[in-house]
């Protein structure tokens, strides 16, 4: 044992630390994984049942009246659209509620920030975990869709990546909302005034082209619209160069909300 180590009792001293250290991110996510171990059954249940209901209602009910939407079979249209809603709900809601509860009610974030963990690492790890989960659960509507006659496509292997990227943006958006909200009831404003219209004006269940011109413009700035287009093109074997534009919008949305979430929640976690 060296002299220095003897003095320090064998502890590493003055180790170099950086930003966004993988060890710190892994530590935060290890907690999320443990908690997920307790809830995965409920989460999995709802993520399978929800698209099943959508496909039953739209596919069988609506689908008997309308066989195709554009050039796409209704069942294919709805199954791919449901991927986007699944991603939206499994990222924006945990971003909002988990953040607010852990920060304000359980004070978990206070406890964690007393350890060698920065606000940036804490928030990034939480968003990463939510978006990884959203990417995986985004596949559920496709799997359910297979039972309704959706054909497997190689492009569907891209869906988890699209779900991850979209989920990252919406999880960060949720964290941002939680950082701004005064009480948890304020989430109702966001849910009814932002998220609900967002998931309808995105070409999920009916094409955006059916909407008035003004609303169509809004869809262009709706990240979920770009997610829907990407998922649909990937799942129906119709990927083309224009899809890079959709991916770019999703990436920009993710980067913007990520930095905003860190900045806003940072000022409230460190006073």
């Amino acid at each position, binding site marked *: 044992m060296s002299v220095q180590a003897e003095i320090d*009792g064998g502890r590493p001293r003055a180790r170099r630390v950086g930003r966004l250290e993988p060890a710190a991110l892994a*530590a935060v996510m*290890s907690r999320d994984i443990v*908690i997920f171990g307790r809830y995965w059954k409920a989460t999995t249940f709802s993520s399978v049942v929800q698209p099943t209901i959508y496909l039953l209602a739209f596919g069988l009910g609506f689908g008997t009246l309308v066989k195709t939407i554009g050039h796409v079979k209704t069942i294919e249209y709805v199954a791919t659209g449901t991927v986007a809603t699944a991603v939206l709900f499994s990222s924006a809601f945990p971003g909002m509620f988990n953040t607010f509860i852990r920060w304000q009610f*359980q004070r*978990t974030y206070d*406890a964690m920030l*007393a*350890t060698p963990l920065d606000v940036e690492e804490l928030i990034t790890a939480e968003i990463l975990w939510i978006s990884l989960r959203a990417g995986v659960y985004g596949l559920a509507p496709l799997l359910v869709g297979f039972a309704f006659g959706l054909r497997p496509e190689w492009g569907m292997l891209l869906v988890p990546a699209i779900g991850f990227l979209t989920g990252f943006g919406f999880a960060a958006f949720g964290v941002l909302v939680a950082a701004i909200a005064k009480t948890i009831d304020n989430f109702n404003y966001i849910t009814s005034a932002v998220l609900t219209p967002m998931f309808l004006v995105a070409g999920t269940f009916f094409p955006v082209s059916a909407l008035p011109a003004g609303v169509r413009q809004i869809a262009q700035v709706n990240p979920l619209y770009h997610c829907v287009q990407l998922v649909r093109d990937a799942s129906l074997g119709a990927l083309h160069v224009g899809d890079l534009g959709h991916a770019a919008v999703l990436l920009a949305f993710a980067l913007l909300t990520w930095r905003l979430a860190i900045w806003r929640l940072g000022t409230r976690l460190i*006073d």
Partner: protein
Amino acid sequence: MRMLTAQTLPAAGEITVLGYRLPDQSKQARMEMGVVPQLDNLDVELTCRQILTVFARLYRVPSSARVEAVQRALELANLVPRAETIVRELSGGMRRRLLVARGLIHRPSLVLLDEPTVGLDPQVRQELWSLIDGLRTQGVTVLMSTHYIEEAERLADVVAVMSHGKIVAQGTPAELVREHAGELVIEVYGPPEQLAELSELAASRSWQSRRSGPALAIMHAERLDGDAPDGVRRPANLEDAFVALTGEEIE
């Protein structure tokens, strides 16, 4: 306390912890520091072992030493039989011990204890005291805030008395007692009128006195010659010194 972990930023002044400048080097400082907060912020959905494992990771205990560190912390907190119990099902004392174990998982060289024994049964408090004393023996620096004066008197090497956010006196408990309350205190019991009279007498003779429950305590009683009132004689303690320093009135 939150300032020492850079969770609250000072409006003015500079803070250095373990040789690290805050907030720039706060991450390094936090690596060598363990925090036991006043408010219970345990993850209620996790088991003791799960919580300690997560915090071992957060404190960067290397993976090869993690299992052992968790076991050691469980033993330290007397929670081995409860390792797999969910926090929600633990008693208040157990939760507090787990909170302490969580802050010690990485063998910190500085431990911050924020009012660690508030609201605990005397038995649990004794247990925590011996735990804190054990840390001190191992050479760990413990910075503890408390409003139980007895706790400070028994455990602390150095006490800083704070009033209105400022340190008004600092020293070993014995020094503070000697300087501010003397060696001997006489406690006189009696009806309120009699005590009021005695209080006036004390003031006129510039004896230092304070109300102590149903009695009037006269400090520095060793200086009184002959004319000391009858009462219970006891050694002066830190509480006497504390009241002498911070005044009887509280806001």
